[in-house]
C-alpha cells in the first residue's frame, strides 16, 4: 500500500488545472479512497479524472448504474472507514437526497460535490446557475444541518476540498462543495504544496484509543454540551452494535419517542454551536463601507472589480464574502451590516436565496438589493450599476 500511496500527492509545484480536476486532486490529497458516481454534465471530469487516479492510490472509483446506487455506495464505503465522495449536478442531487438524510442521521462522513447547472428539471446542462443553494440546505427529509462551501477559483477548489473532508470527519454531517458549470471548467494555475504541508492540514480517519467510547454525538446531561466523537468504522472494535436511522443515543440504541426532540437538538446544534469555527468568510474594503455587497462563489470575483471601479468614483463600498454558505452566519452578518446604507446581493439565481437570508437578519431595516443572473456570469458592470443606483 505504501508505494501506491506515494501517488496520492502530486509533485509540489504549479499546474494548469481545470476546476473539476483541481477538486478531484484536493480530494485525493485529503486521502480519498472511494468515489461512487454516475457521470452527469457538468461534473463529468471529476469521475473521469478519479477513474484514472484512484486506482493509482489503491482506491476505487466506481461508476454505478444510477445516482441512488452511487450515493449508497459512497455511504457503504465511508461506513467501513474509507474517505468517500460523489460528484453530480442538480438532477443527481435531487435523486440522492433520500440517502443524504439517512447519512445525516447515522452521522456518516462524506463529501458531496455539486457542479450546478441551469434548472429546474433538465434545464440547460452546460451553463451555470446557483439554483441548488436551497436544495443543499434542505437535502432530504427530517431536520439536520449541512455545511456548504462556495469556492471561486481553481486553487480554492483544491484547498476547500481538503477543508471539506476535514469538516466531514469533525462534524459528521453532509458536506457540500458548491461549484458550477463555469467554475468547473475554468483553467487556472493551482499551486500544489509539498506532501508534508498537506498532511499537516489533513484529519485522518483513525480509530480512537478508547474504543468503548461514544459512537454518535451526545449531550452531556449536566452541562448540556455536545460532543461529536470520531466516526466509527464498521468491522472494527470501534463500531456501534446497531446502526439504525431512527432517533438514537450515543451507542446507536433506539431512543424512546418522547426523546425525539433531544435527538433533533443534537442533529441541529452540533453545527449551530460551532458556527464560529465552521463559518469561513472574507472581507474586502469593508472598513469604511456604507454599501455592502454580500455574495459567494464566482459573483464575488466580478464584485471585486465593481468595488474597485466604484471606489475610484468615491463610493464607499465593500464585500462580505461567504466561503461557507451553510450554515448561514447570521450573527456575523448582523454585525457586518450594522449601520449600512444598503446591501447588494449578486447571486447566480433569480430568487436570491442568500438575499432572503440577509433580509431575515436585517429585519428589513436596510434595503437588500438583489442582482440576479442565470446561465452566465455577472459582468462587473451589472454590479457597478447596482452600486451606483444605491449611491445616488
Amino acid at each position, binding site marked *: 500500500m505504501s508505494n501506491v500511496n506515494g501517488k496520492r500527492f502530486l509533485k509540489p509545484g*504549479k*499546474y*494548469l488545472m481545470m476546476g473539476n480536476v483541481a477538486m478531484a486532486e484536493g480530494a485525493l490529497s485529503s486521502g480519498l479512497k472511494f468515489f461512487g458516481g454516475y457521470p452527469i*454534465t*457538468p461534473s463529468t471530469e471529476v469521475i473521469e479524472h478519479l477513474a484514472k487516479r484512484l486506482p493509482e492510490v489503491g482506491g476505487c472509483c466506481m461508476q454505478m448504474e444510477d445516482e441512488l446506487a452511487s450515493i449508497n455506495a459512497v455511504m457503504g464505503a465511508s461506513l467501513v472507514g474509507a474517505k468517500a465522495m460523489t460528484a453530480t449536478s442538480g438532477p443527481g442531487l435531487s435523486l440522492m437526497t433520500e440517502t443524504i438524510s439517512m447519512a445525516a442521521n447515522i452521522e456518516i462522513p462524506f463529501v458531496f460535490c455539486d457542479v450546478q447547472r441551469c434548472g429546474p428539471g433538465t434545464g440547460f*446542462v*452546460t451553463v451555470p446557475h446557483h439554483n441548488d443553494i436551497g436544495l443543499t440546505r434542505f437535502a432530504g427529509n427530517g431536520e439536520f444541518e449541512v455545511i456548504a462551501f462556495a469556492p471561486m*477559483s481553481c486553487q480554492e477548489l483544491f484547498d476547500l476540498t481538503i477543508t471539506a473532508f476535514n469538516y466531514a470527519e469533525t462534524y459528521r454531517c453532509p458536506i457540500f462543495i458548491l461549484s458550477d*458549470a*463555469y467554475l468547473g*471548467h*475554468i*483553467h*487556472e*494555475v493551482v499551486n500544489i504544496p509539498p506532501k508534508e504541508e498537506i498532511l499537516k492540514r489533513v484529519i485522518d480517519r483513525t480509530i480512537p484509543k478508547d474504543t468503548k467510547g461514544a459512537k454518535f454525538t451526545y449531550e452531556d446531561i449536566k452541562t448540556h454540551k455536545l460532543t461529536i466523537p470520531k466516526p466509527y468504522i464498521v468491522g472494527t472494535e470501534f463500531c456501534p452494535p446497531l446502526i439504525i436511522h431512527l432517533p438514537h443515543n450515543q451507542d446507536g440504541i433506539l431512543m424512546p419517542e418522547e426523546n425525539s426532540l433531544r435527538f433533533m437538538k443534537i442533529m441541529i446544534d452540533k453545527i449551530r454551536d460551532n458556527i464560529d469555527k465552521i463559518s469561513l468568510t472574507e472581507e474586502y474594503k469593508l472598513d469604511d463601507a456604507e454599501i455592502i455587497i454580500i455574495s459567494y462563489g*464566482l459573483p464575488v*470575483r*466580478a464584485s*471585486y*472589480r465593481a468595488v*474597485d471601479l466604484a471606489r475610484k468614483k468615491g463610493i464607499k463600498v465593500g464585500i462580505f464574502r461567504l466561503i461557507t454558505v451553510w450554515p448561514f452566519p447570521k450573527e456575523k452578518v448582523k454585525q457586518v451590516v450594522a449601520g449600512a446604507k444598503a446591501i447588494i446581493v449578486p447571486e447566480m439565481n433569480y430568487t436570491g436565496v442568500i438575499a432572503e437570508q440577509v433580509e431575515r437578519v436585517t429585519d428589513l431595516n436596510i434595503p437588500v438589493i438583489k442582482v440576479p443572473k442565470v446561465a452566465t*456570469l455577472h*459582468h*462587473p458592470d451589472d454590479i457597478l450599476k447596482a452600486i451606483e443606483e444605491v449611491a445616488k
Partner: protein
Amino acid sequence: MNRYEIRIVGYGGQGIITLSKMIAYASGICEELLVTQTEAYGAQARGGRSWAEVVIDLDRESKQIDYPKALKPYDLLVILSDAATKEVKKEVIKKEENTGLLIWDSSTILGKFRAASKMKNLGLPIQKMALEKFGDTVYGNTILFGIFTVVTKIFSEESAIETIKQFVPSSTLEKNIEAFKFGKQKAEEFLTQLKEGMS
C-alpha cells in the same frame, strides 16, 4: 492588476481551446503570471461556433484575477471563421499604441472583412499556409502561437517551446517547432511593416 484580455473565436475542431490552453500554460506555468482560461463548453466545442478566452495579469504583485472572463475592449482578438467576424467592431479592440490587435485567418474568412481595416490588424491565410507548408491545418495553431509570442512579448521563446513540448505529440514536435518559427517570422515581418508605416 494589469489585465491582458484575449479572445479567440472560430469553429469547433480548429484547436481554439488548445491554443488558449497553450497561451495559459506559457504565461501561467513558464512565466509564473496569474492566468485564467475559459472556454466554450458543450456541443459548440465539437463543431459550430467555438470560443476561448484568456486573461493574463501582467502585474506580478496581484494575488488573484478578479473577473475571470475577458473584458472588452480586448488586447488581442483572434477571428478564425466567417461567422465570428460579426463580433468585430471598432470599440471591441483597445486603441493604445502598444496593444490592441486583431489577428484573422484570410483563408477561412472568405467574404469582405471591412471591419478589420478600421483597426490594427494582421490577416494571414493561416490554415492554407499550414496545409501547404506542413501538410495539415492543425499546424495553424502553432503558427498562431508563434505570432502570439512575438506580438505580445508576454512569454519568451524558450517558454513557448517548452509549452509546445507539453502540448503536441512527440512525433510531431519537430514540425510544430518549424510551424512556430514560421509564425514568429510572419509576426516579425508584420511588426516591421507596422513600424515603417508609422514612421
